[in-house]
């Protein structure tokens, strides 16, 4: 399920969408510059607490395909074979953990980043994202950047997204219903694949352009672009609190990492 919030309400659901976007952007920057264990652990803890408050059930987490598990397993084994510091002694056998720790760290980093993004899409109604972008981008207007235009196209894209996904499913299903000619040679098969891909893409783009034209007419019928939201949300005290907590956690992580030189 994409961009559909988990049913229910909670403090996290009620936060302003802009706050959540700011947090995710900020934490992403933090993790790119300080990808140490301390930062990862602190952010992971934040995500876990937020998920707890938002009552995210375990079923919301998408299942991991088998090939990904296998790839992860192979990666881990080959990294673990490298050994290296730190070493632990288990019954007289010295096992170097350096390699596996490195591998685990980069995996944990990607997981935490994914989890953070997922928290936003699990708890945010898509209707709030466009207006939030318009408000967050307000300073950019001074640079004559058309932020409002971006916000409108984002909001409309989010509105059209589920409809078009449905239409793509029908397109794909219609293709599955067709008989598949058996190509003679490998070259013919490759050619066939390419042609089919182009066909499918042309069909998809034609469908979306048609949908866009209809929406364009609907926009014209309403006299162009204007208000986006009936009750525009604004940051509330809870939002400032959230931002404060996240900033404090991030600052703390940076302080610990730099003071103790935990990672290079």
């Amino acid at each position, binding site marked *: 399920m994409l*961009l*559909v919030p988990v049913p229910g309400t909670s403090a996290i659901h009620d936060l302003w969408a802009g706050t959540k976007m700011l947090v*995710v952007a900020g934490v992403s920057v933090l993790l*790119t*510059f300080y990808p140490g264990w301390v930062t990862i652990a602190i952010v992971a803890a934040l995500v876990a607490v937020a998920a707890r408050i938002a009552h995210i059930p375990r079923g919301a987490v998408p299942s991991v395909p088998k090939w990904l598990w296998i790839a992860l397993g192979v990666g881990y084994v*080959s990294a673990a*074979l*490298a050994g*290296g510091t730190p070493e632990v002694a288990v019954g007289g056998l010295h096992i170097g953990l350096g*390699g596996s720790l*490195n591998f685990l*760290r*980069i995996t944990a*980093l990607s997981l935490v*980043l*994914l989890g953070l993004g997922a928290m*936003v*899409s699990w708890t945010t109604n*898509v*209707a709030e994202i466009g207006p939030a972008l318009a408000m967050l981008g307000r300073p950019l207007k001074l640079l004559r950047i*058309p932020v409002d*235009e*971006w916000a409108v*196209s*984002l909001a*409309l*894209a989010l*509105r*059209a*997204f589920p409809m078009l996904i449905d239409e*793509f499913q029908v*397109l794909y299903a219609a*293709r*599955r*219903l*067709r*008989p*598949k000619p058996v190509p003679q040679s490998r070259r013919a098969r490759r050619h066939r694949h390419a042609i089919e*891909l182009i066909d499918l*893409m*042309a*069909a*998809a*783009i*034609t*469908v979306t352009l*048609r*949908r866009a*034209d*209809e929406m364009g*007419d*609907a926009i014209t*019928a309403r*006299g*162009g672009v*204007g*208000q*986006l*939201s*009936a009750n525009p949300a604004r940051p509330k005290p809870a939002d400032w609190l959230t931002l404060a907590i996240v900033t404090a956690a991030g600052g703390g992580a940076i302080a610990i990492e730099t003071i103790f030189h935990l990672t290079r």
Partner: protein
Amino acid sequence: MAALCAVIAIVAVVVPFAAGVALLGTVPTALIAFRYRLRALFATTVAAGMIAFLIAGMGGFIGVFHSAYVGGLVGIVRRKGRGTPTVVFSSLIAGIFLGAASVGSLALMTRLRHLIYEAMKSNVDGLASFLGRVNLQQPADVLQRCFATVVGYWPWVALVYFVISTVVVSLIGWWALSRLIARMRGVPDLHKLDASAAAVDIPIGPIPVRLDKVRFRYPGTGQDALSELSLELRAGEHIAVTGSNGSGKTTLMLVLAGREPTAGTVERPGAVGLGKFGGTAVVLQHPESQVLGTRVADDVVWGLPPGTNVDVGQLLREVGLEGLDERDTGSLSGGELQRLALAAALAREPALLIADEVTSMVDQQGRDSLLGVLSGLAKRHQAALVHITHYNNEADTADRVIRLRESPDNADMAGAVGASAASVAVSPGSQAPVLELIGVGHEYGSGTPWAKTALRDVSFVVEQGDGLLVHGGNGSGKSTLAWIMAGLTVPTSGVCLLDGRPTHEQVGAVALSFQAARLQLMRSRVDLEVASAAGFSPRDEDRVAAALSVVGLDSTLAKRRIDQLSGGQMRRVVLAGLLACSPRALILDEPLAGLDAASQRGLLTLLEELRRDRGLTVVVISHDVAGLEDLCPRTLDLRDGMLEAMPTAAKGVS
């Protein structure tokens, strides 16, 4: 405006393609850059990037950014009319820039770079120590040394990598874009409403309007779309415009909404004021694309000038959507969406309200309530109402009815079935079960918080030559049932058998005609389409003609472009392709939606003849029962995913 809409559309294509087929993610953005201004490309990038960011985090955003960068480049080169060498050259330069930017940012992100380096080093060292243990010390050393060298020169390696990949991706995008543009040449710009009419700086006053001997002809066509018409419309009047497809109803709407006619005069006191206060409001045919907001209340105010306050609750009450302010517009039915669009139109207190075939995509129940709202409007508001419809009975509540003349283009839709070669597996008189559904249930998103049950314990049998109607309203699970019967969806419980084997193992044996016929037509021309759907060569003109004659279409239509077909013809072309595969059964999902009365009759006659003469097994899925009795003697009622009653022929269920 066109650019803005294309942006929206393309965004939706970019995201799945960029995720799935990364190499082709560039093509939609290339198309944007080819067709529209650079500004549209920026808006696309931002919107697509944000969506990708919400779905897949920072990686998604960067992926979309790269697609837009390379795609924009290819599109611009294409627009300038340059060739492959220019693509190679400019992508080389672009690759250098992209590489330099990436190297620069990696140089800044010291810690992340070290982490990536350490992780890669661990993998390489691990592999080396494994090789060393199996007595391959030499390759292990070579491997480690190579890695060390590569890492030593990492900025250069990264730069070369980015340059090469940019060039390769650009060339792939270039190839695909060229193919695509060739394929899509001649896709008509369907924009109907004229935005410039709204920009004129004179006071708004669309009513009263007088049309004197007005004719309209689209540029580049040889025939009038609207033949000579005189008409006067006063404030507060309710008129209905009827006529079949192609009689110029929609063209009349365009003229009333401000398009200049080809001949004749239109007199009105002021500007049309499309979508402005006291101006003209238009509600169009397609429910989903009418509604622009994601939340009901947001949609009512969508596009109003900033700072305007309207009483959303009152407007929603008037159209019978009271208390739904916070609902997601995606969860509304067609009828509710159209009523919402009406509320948005009323928020502008229009002097002229035009409803263009608003009921044609809506089920019977939705139609009744929509008409109820419409007929009450003229009484409560000082608005003139023009209701365009192809149902004569909908015109009854109007003060005046204007009937537009039949266009000559439309007379050939009788259901003549020619003698032909297409064979449907016939065994007359046999009562063998074709489709057998045993305790079928389906749940979407099982195990997630979004789990939704669509079907529960559905059992029935379709016999050879049967005509079955599955009747149900919105959200009754009837489309899911169609997908299961065609083998496209595997039911989560129970089985659906075709000739004793699960249907999903033999996809294609049961033909399915989707509600949106256009989505099922993938090639650009009728003959190519039929040949591709049936699996024979398009050069085989006899078979194409035979397939077309089965559905009562003339073989002269074979060279026609798909985009130039009417709704009824499209449905017939789909049927031609499906029937040429000799399916065991034919499932039709809402076959009559969006067709005018004459096309509906023609299609029904055709299907009845196919069933009677060829023993074709037909299953119709519909929210309407009217007119289907002859085609489908048996009816099953589906409500909330369960069968209501099993009227006849329930034998054979094990």
